[in-house]
């Protein structure tokens, strides 16, 4: 019928076509994802409010994994933490193209808080909770950028907590980690916490793991190393079975996570032997010894997104030199024990 047809001007008909083409894309979430994954982070956060579908797509954890794999960035700054355990001081060390300001750590200002380890933007710290009658040392993992933290259901009571000259001195004593009854020799169990390490690689997975290493003496002179791994996806600790034979000179107090493994340095060898433990594949838990010479180490640092953070002083110096930071002399560096990478 002639009078029923609505005549549309050319401009509006092409507009309708444009709409339909745009709609066809918008209805296909695969295509939208393909486009969104190419956007920088800032527009992405804004576009969350476009529609429910976009919010869903952008908030998906697989999407963020995909996005961070596509947009790899070299590290932009280092945090240096002084060796002093009490009142740790941070130095923020931005690299040339860093647009970040120094983040705040006020939430760590509580006395009795000590930073244990860090890895790829996650920070693990312990905090003395003295609101209850018996002081409890609680462990947290936090992301300083988003200021969100999660408490790790870990290691409970602190046995020796003394106050000396106005500050806390905490001797870590490990209690709540599951220890088999058969290996528990009465009350004389003496446990010595060696280290807690966060293992987090945003390019591999959104989940992090925490490795806890301690030694316990079953009898008087026989100390054995024990290791437990916490998985954030299930929220549970699991102890690795078996006695680990670790060369004497390996210092388990200082470890770094790098390339899917936690590495410890051996102090005996001049060319520094590293001991690595794969945290992602726990079924074949083995310690693998590496021999890196300095140059190789520095090369690895530069080529890969570094999460190496505890390296020998010459290697660190070289790394810094390669970033144009000659001002940091090695004598300054010696004061620092580990570095945070953000």
């Amino acid at each position: 019928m002639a009078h029923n047809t609505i005549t549309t001007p050319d401009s509006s008909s092409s507009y309708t076509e444009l709409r339909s083409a745009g709609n066809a894309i918008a209805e296909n979430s695969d295509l939208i994802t393909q486009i969104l994954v190419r956007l920088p982070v800032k527009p992405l956060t804004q576009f969350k409010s476009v529609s429910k579908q976009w919010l869903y797509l952008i908030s998906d954890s697989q999407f963020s994994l995909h996005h961070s794999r596509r947009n790899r960035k070299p590290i932009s700054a280092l945090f240096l933490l002084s060796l002093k355990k009490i009142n740790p001081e941070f130095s923020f060390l931005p690299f040339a193209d860093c647009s970040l300001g120094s983040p705040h750590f006020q939430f760590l200002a509580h006395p009795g808080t000590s930073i244990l380890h860090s890895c790829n933007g996650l920070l693990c710290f312990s905090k003395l909770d003295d609101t209850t009658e018996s002081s409890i040392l609680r462990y947290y993992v936090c992301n300083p950028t988003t200021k969100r933290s999660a408490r790790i259901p870990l290691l409970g009571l602190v046995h020796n907590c003394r106050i000396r000259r106005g500050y806390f001195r905490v001797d870590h004593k490990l209690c709540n980690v599951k220890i088999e009854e058969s290996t528990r020799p009465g009350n004389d169990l003496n446990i010595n916490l060696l280290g807690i390490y966060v293992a987090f690689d945003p390019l591999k997975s959104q989940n992090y793991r925490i490795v806890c290493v301690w030694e316990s003496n079953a009898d008087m002179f026989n100390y054995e190393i024990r290791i437990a791994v916490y998985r954030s996806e299930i929220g549970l600790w699991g102890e690795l079975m078996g006695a680990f034979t670790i060369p004497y000179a390996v210092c388990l107090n200082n470890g770094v996570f790098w390339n899917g493994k936690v590495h410890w340095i051996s102090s005996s060898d001049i060319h520094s032997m590293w001991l690595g433990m794969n945290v992602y594949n726990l079924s074949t838990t083995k310690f693998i010894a590496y021999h890196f010479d300095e140059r190789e180490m520095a090369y690895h640092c530069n080529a890969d997104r570094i999460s190496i953070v505890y390296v020998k002083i010459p290697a660190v110096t070289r790394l810094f030199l390669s970033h144009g930071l000659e001002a940091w002399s090695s004598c300054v560096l010696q004061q620092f024990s580990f570095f945070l990478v953000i």
Partner: protein
Amino acid sequence: MSSSLEKNMLILRSSDGEEFIVPEVVAVMSKAIKNMVEDECASNTIPVPNVDANILAMVIEFCKKHDESEAEAASDLKTFDSEFVNRGQEALYDLITAANFRDVKELLDALCQNVAEMIKGKSVHHIRIQFLGYQLFEILTSNFIWNIWCDRDFD
């Protein structure tokens, strides 16, 4: 009929009936066509539904260029890509749909990159108009009505 063609040529027929003779190596850059050829379910003519002659010509142009210039410098190909995708929105969206439908990876990559560059600095309203078919007056009126609703007295 097929004897008149060279052996490794294929005929693609667009949705509006136009036929294109392309070398097989170019045609199989589309994964969908490649699968058809490998499964030997492609007779002389391969129908390409949902894609009209204009768009199909563009896609073939892109694939030919990429096929020829495999040995050429990557920077040349980059400049070609950026010029190729620099089109009006309408053609761009149709191309994306076609590239996705026929599974042409290189083209889809280049196009998505271009759309991402385009929408990077845009406002949320703009995105809604562009992708979700909101019209400007709908947003304005809904805001207007919302404001009236919010401002009214509840007594």
